[in-house]
């Protein structure tokens, strides 16, 4: 079995964006997606700290401390970019104007509940940032995560045990093993890693899965 690499996951996410899509890429794994946007498509990236039309990281020495992303890393602004204040930026998110956001996750439930901001561990300092706004705001909320925890437990769960970020918000899950849609009828597998059978995937996953009609037959 050959798992999807992080770059393969990112490329798979990016291939879903149509020309002209407005997209917010969360901190961590989702930032990789920017490297995989097809060259023939114009995708406009939003960063919640007040920039639409975000470009790639600057060359070393060209960093501008006033041009950063939500992770406070230096970025650039493309021709056509615009700056705005925080209330306007989150109005874009909350108002449903972003086509996609891509977020990391601790857990996703069968109903599309998302837990990605806080482990809830005693003594842990909570920090939420814009995670809850992205989760409720974008028209399509994509999650990128490892399928299993380091201990081998499914991160796709019947019900999140970590504190929720938002209820029923996730539309599609990209893991190293599969691509899974969250639908009103439950989770539907639309892609699967080479050499992994549907039954094997089901065994690794804590929630019943269905096959998409167009799911390619895989080696047993």
């Amino acid at each position: 079995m050959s798992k999807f690499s992080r770059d393969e996951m990112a490329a798979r996410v990016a291939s879903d964006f149509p020309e002209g899509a407005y997209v917010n890429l969360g901190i961590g794994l989702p930032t990789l997606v920017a490297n995989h946007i097809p060259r023939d498509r114009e995708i406009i990236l939003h960063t919640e700290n007040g920039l639409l039309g975000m470009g790639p990281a600057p060359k070393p020495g060209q960093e501008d401390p006033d041009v950063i992303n939500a992770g406070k890393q230096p970025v650039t602004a493309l021709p056509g970019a615009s700056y705005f204040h925080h209330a306007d930026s989150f109005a874009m998110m909350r108002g449903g104007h972003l086509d996609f956001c891509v977020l990391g996750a601790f857990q996703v439930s069968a109903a599309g509940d998302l837990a990605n901001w806080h482990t809830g561990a005693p003594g842990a300092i909570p920090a939420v940032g814009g995670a809850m706004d992205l989760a409720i705001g974008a028209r399509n909320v994509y999650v990128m995560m490892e399928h299993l925890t380091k201990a081998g437990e499914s991160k796709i769960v019947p019900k999140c045990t970590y504190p929720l970020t938002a209820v029923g918000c996730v539309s599609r899950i990209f893991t190293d093993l599969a691509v899974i849609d969250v639908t009103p009828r439950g989770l539907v597998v639309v892609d699967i890693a080479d050499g992994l059978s549907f039954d094997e995937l089901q065994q690794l996953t804590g929630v019943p899965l269905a096959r998409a009609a167009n799911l390619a037959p895989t080696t047993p």
Partner: protein
Amino acid sequence: MIDKRVASADAALAGVTDAMTIMIGGFGNAGMPGDLIDALIRHGARDLTIVNNNAGNADSGLALLLKERRVRKIICSFPRQVDSWHFDKLYKEGAIELELVPQGNLAERIRAAGAGIGGFFTPTGYGTQLAEGKETREIDGRQYVFERPIHADFALIKALRADRWGNLTYRKTARNFGPIMASAARCTVAQVQHFEPLGALDPEAVVTPGIFVNRVLVVRSDVSTPAQAEA
């Protein structure tokens, strides 16, 4: 390559159907998207709900749309003007429904729709006829009225400059309702006077980022803003 320009005012209105809610920018004539309103009259859609600050002036634009009896309901703050005779006639006949909204509540309700806010408490209108039947609440010793967002199917607005991503700048007080209406509609169409190459608009001075704009109609000869008045 993204290019939000449309070829004609008629193409700009593709998808408009009867019974839609349509926001129309402008405060009087400043910021009124004349070419798009004319196209809406040609289009023929009826039973419309129109959101505008006023209810049409004289014998052009929105006033003509009213005269053609294509508007079921108007949501506005100031319908009665010296030259609002088409509205006045329909209103007195009972042929049009009026939802009168204080101007600031109108603006805030449009903004709330664009910002995903489900409703808000405003002090404006408390204790008046215009708040009758509405939920009220005392907060920190002050009285407020609950108001709901106003969403639209289309927003037709006028701006000064656009680029192919749909970024917009406006001209002076013609800005008025344009930026908030752009955010509150499923499909926003901006009539502009100047089309600029991508990157020509100062990113610090873009007023409406392109995310709020679906279609751009370039109308170079805009009679309502004489060339000598341009800045």
